[in-house]
């Protein structure tokens, strides 16, 4: 609340933005209020950042400013003039106080609530995966549970953020190659806009390939199936059976198959949310795969304790049955 106070005569009834009777000539206000500070790390220039600026205006002119953080574990502040530079330290909330001392008058203060969010670039996974020789098809029915991205609530980040949920087949015999399909929610570098999509993706010897189409609706469940024709190197992507909604051919995959199959939730920043919450989890059901030989799908065979997560304090992963698992975020934004 902007205003004026005297150390000996606090003014608890002062209105926001109005001087008090105790010190009618002293007034200070800082903007923006509240202040959001995005701490972006690991993304590189020009996206990495950890500071935001406050600007104070005090009257009468000619006074001095001082800045103070009420919680330096969340945010610190520096500045001797009218500009305060707030540095985010950790996710959370703190108050920043600016004190203005004009000539011949007692000091007055303004308090600015600050919220710090963090986008630290590191991939995390919640998944069930298994090594399977000669795997050439995988599928699952996945519930669509879109999740918040880091600093989305604060709106101050133009760094990349992503959560996606998918079925994946990889070949780990050399440089990692993979194909996958699922849904995701993404903020691209350079923008605060966030988009959802159904996607297919192939990494092989040709340049990386991705295709995005209309996103499935929140709360709906759909079968995602990816299937390789090793004779041609063509991947086919299916949504709820029928004909493939996308295909892509890459020379790497001709004559080859995968050696690992996964049903996965993925995020690209520590504070991106994983699909699902404790009250409405993201369900993978009917998890199956196919290998060389008869073109039949077999159950994933998820064992007790099979699903894993990068950090059990942040994300949940639990087996439901031999063909089903749930994933969720334990601390959603």
């Amino acid at each position, binding site marked *: 609340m902007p205003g004026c106070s005297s150390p000996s005569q606090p003014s608890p009834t002062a209105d926001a933005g109005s001087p008090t009777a105790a010190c009618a000539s002293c007034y200070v206000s800082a903007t923006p209020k509240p202040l959001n500070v995005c701490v972006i790390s690991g993304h590189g220039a020009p996206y990495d950042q950890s500071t935001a600026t406050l600007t104070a205006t005090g009257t009468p002119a000619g006074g001095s400013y001082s800045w103070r953080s009420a919680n330096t574990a969340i945010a610190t502040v520096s500045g001797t003039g009218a500009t305060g530079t707030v540095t985010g330290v950790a996710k959370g909330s703190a108050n920043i106080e600016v004190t203005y001392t004009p000539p011949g008058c007692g000091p007055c203060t303004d308090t600015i609530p600050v919220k710090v969010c963090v986008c630290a670039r590191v991939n995390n996974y919640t998944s069930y995966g298994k090594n399977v020789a000669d795997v050439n098809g995988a599928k699952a029915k996945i519930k669509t549970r879109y999740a918040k991205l880091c600093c989305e609530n604060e709106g101050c980040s133009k760094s990349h953020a992503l959560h996606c949920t*998918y079925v994946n087949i990889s070949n780990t015999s050399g440089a990692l190659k993979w194909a996958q399909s699922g849904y995701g929610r993404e903020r*691209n570098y350079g923008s605060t806009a966030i988009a959802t999509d159904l996607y297919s993706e192939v990494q092989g010897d040709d340049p990386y390939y991705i295709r995005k189409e209309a996103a499935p609706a929140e709360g709906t469940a759909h079968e995602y199936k990816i299937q390789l024709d090793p004779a041609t190197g063509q991947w086919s992507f299916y949504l709820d059976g029928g004909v493939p909604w996308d295909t892509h051919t890459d020379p790497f995959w001709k004559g080859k198959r995968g050696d690992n199959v996964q049903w996965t939730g993925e995020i690209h920043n520590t504070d991106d949310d994983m699909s699902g919450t404790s009250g409405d989890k993201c369900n993978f059901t009917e998890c199956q795969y196919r290998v060389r030989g008869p073109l039949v799908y077999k159950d994933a065979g998820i064992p007790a304790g099979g699903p894993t997560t990068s950090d059990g304090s942040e994300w949940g992963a639990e087996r439901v049955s031999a063909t089903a698992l749930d994933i969720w975020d334990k601390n959603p934004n």
Partner: protein
Amino acid sequence: MAMNERTRGAPLLGILICAAAALAGRADAQASGREKKLPDKQDIATESAAIERANRLTGLNQLTASAAARRIVISSSNLPFLAGEVVGQPAWQVDFGKTALRLKLALRGFQDSYQREFRVILLERGGQLVGVSSRYEGEDPDMREPPSAESAQRQLQGGSEVYTGLPADDPKIVFLDALNVVLTKGSGSPFLAKVIEGVYVMDSSRGSPARPVWAITLRGLPPFSAHGPGADSVPVWQRNHMRNVLDAMTGQLLFATNTPQPI
């Protein structure tokens, strides 16, 4: 539209053409068996008619009143499936003055990252749009030249997509409005693309009936991220371009893909 002509570090027109020679005055168009002159379209006879036609198809006059037209012959093109039909054709090249992109659905006060000079190529016979593209004069080593027509065609065929021709009817959604669709519903922001290229073509995907679409390629984007455990290993030059395809009659976004791409 890769052209023979280059600007600093980037093709002048990714999807288009090259003017073999500017033709003075109104030269008679050479009839060609490859031409698809449309009965309901008028030939473009004058500079002012070319500019008017470019305005009507693109809406770029909403950005700048500065435009100049000259007659050319298309000497090369990297428009997949259709390069053979446009190369050798007399055409009009309409150059719009340097301007920032302004889109009506952008956030209030949002500013374009680049100053752009759009070039529009129109066939002289029938006035069909061959392409529209913006110029980028900076350096970006990760923004590679777009693929040749042959390479792009192979890539699209790999995904069962075909450009079957230039549409007979004008789009109901002009180019500038198509950019609004990309901005709000597509993949990649036009404001962040160093180069914007658009073609108005009949597109058939997976055997569906061909329909008129805007295929708008954004190049030189901040890189998007690959998914999966190997995401960070994918080179930037494979993740900084995106083609958004939308129905030119309804404005519905159909799909987005990074194909075709440099090989």
